[in-house]
């Protein structure tokens, strides 16, 4: 009986279409991904089982670690307006270029008096410069730099987006409670009684 010969077909598959789709998706994800800026402070956030995600606008993040506080105002427009308001308050002058540069700085931890110098620097110098200071000064409960930053940022948010700004605290797990309390007191001084604590997802959380 003659055997039926199956014609051998090439196993090579045409990858062109697959490649196209893959790169299309890749481009999409790269563009939508928000690049993460390195944190000036090494912070290991405690974990919790909450599932609520941090919003990505109208927010100020206070990073607390090693007794220092760093402020990060989210949103370039809010950040720039906040600086303008702060400059008025301290009667300092900032050029439009300086304000613009400030708009792209993620977080800062220097006294307001040294901010002008800070803005002029590049990334590496900034980290060194910040190391000299104890973060944003929080010496008293009222009328310190941190108090004013939050106050002005709230005003700027209300002015630009007509919403109440949220305040998030991103504390290091090892940070002692009194340091956190000092910051919370500053917030409560201006009647910010509701705020959120940033945590990481717990392994095996329900």
């Amino acid at each position, binding site marked *: 009986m003659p055997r039926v010969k199956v014609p051998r077909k090439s196993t090579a598959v045409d990858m062109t279409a697959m490649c196209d789709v893959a790169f299309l998706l890749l481009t999409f*994800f790269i563009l939508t991904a928000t690049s993460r800026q390195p944190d000036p402070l090494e912070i290991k956030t405690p974990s*919790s089982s909450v599932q609520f995600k941090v919003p990505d606008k109208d927010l100020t993040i206070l990073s607390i670690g090693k007794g220092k506080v760093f402020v990060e105002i989210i949103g370039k427009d809010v950040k720039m307006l906040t600086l303008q308001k702060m400059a008025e308050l301290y009667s300092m002058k900032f050029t439009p270029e300086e304000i613009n540069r400030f708009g792209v700085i993620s977080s800062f931890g220097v006294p307001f008096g040294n901010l002008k110098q800070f803005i002029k620097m590049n990334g590496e110098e900034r980290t060194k410069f910040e190391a000299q200071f104890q973060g944003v000064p929080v010496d008293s409960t009222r009328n310190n730099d941190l108090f004013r930053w939050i106050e002005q940022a709230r005003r700027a948010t209300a002015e630009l987006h007509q919403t109440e700004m949220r305040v998030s605290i991103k504390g290091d797990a090892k940070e002692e409670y009194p340091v956190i309390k000092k910051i919370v007191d500053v917030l409560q001084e201006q009647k910010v009684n509701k705020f*959120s604590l940033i945590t990481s997802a717990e392994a095996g959380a329900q």
Partner: protein
Amino acid sequence: MAELDTSGGGGKKGGKVRSKKQSTKVDLTAMVDLAFLLITFFMLTTSLSKPLAMDIAKPDKDAKDENRLEVRESQTMTILLGKNDRIAWYMGKAGSTAPTIEGFSDIRASLLKNKKEVKDKTGRDIIILVKPTSGANYKNFVDIMDEINVTKTNISAPAIDDDPKHLLEAEIAFMKAKGIL
């Protein structure tokens, strides 16, 4: 498909030197592999890098607020956060019942037990009073708030009282004796 006619140059015609045409087919397997690897990476990092937020509401500092309620002793559980990740908790009035010292692994069971006991005894929901002391760290605070959240003992919001002046004599004495303050 992007494939050109690759039939050989044919015979020599007119003495023209023709370079041998090579196939333009490129093996895309490696490229696709790489692309999918990157896609996976970006997909995972975009959704996972977003941190989570735990909402905390603290009582207003203004003492002349009329909305203040006196809490019943029978339904309060006070949780003191001490150093070395230790917790001391007691029911009712300070000094009347001996506080229990626990670690964070056991507190969940205690919370559930007390919640049930209070509900059975008084028919009311438990009120939790959290007092972080100077020895506690931030992680302890987040952990206890999370435990309260997980055990759903926060039917009425837990009261956070972190003013060192509000620590009662009996509480200080007890915590000192146990070496967690």
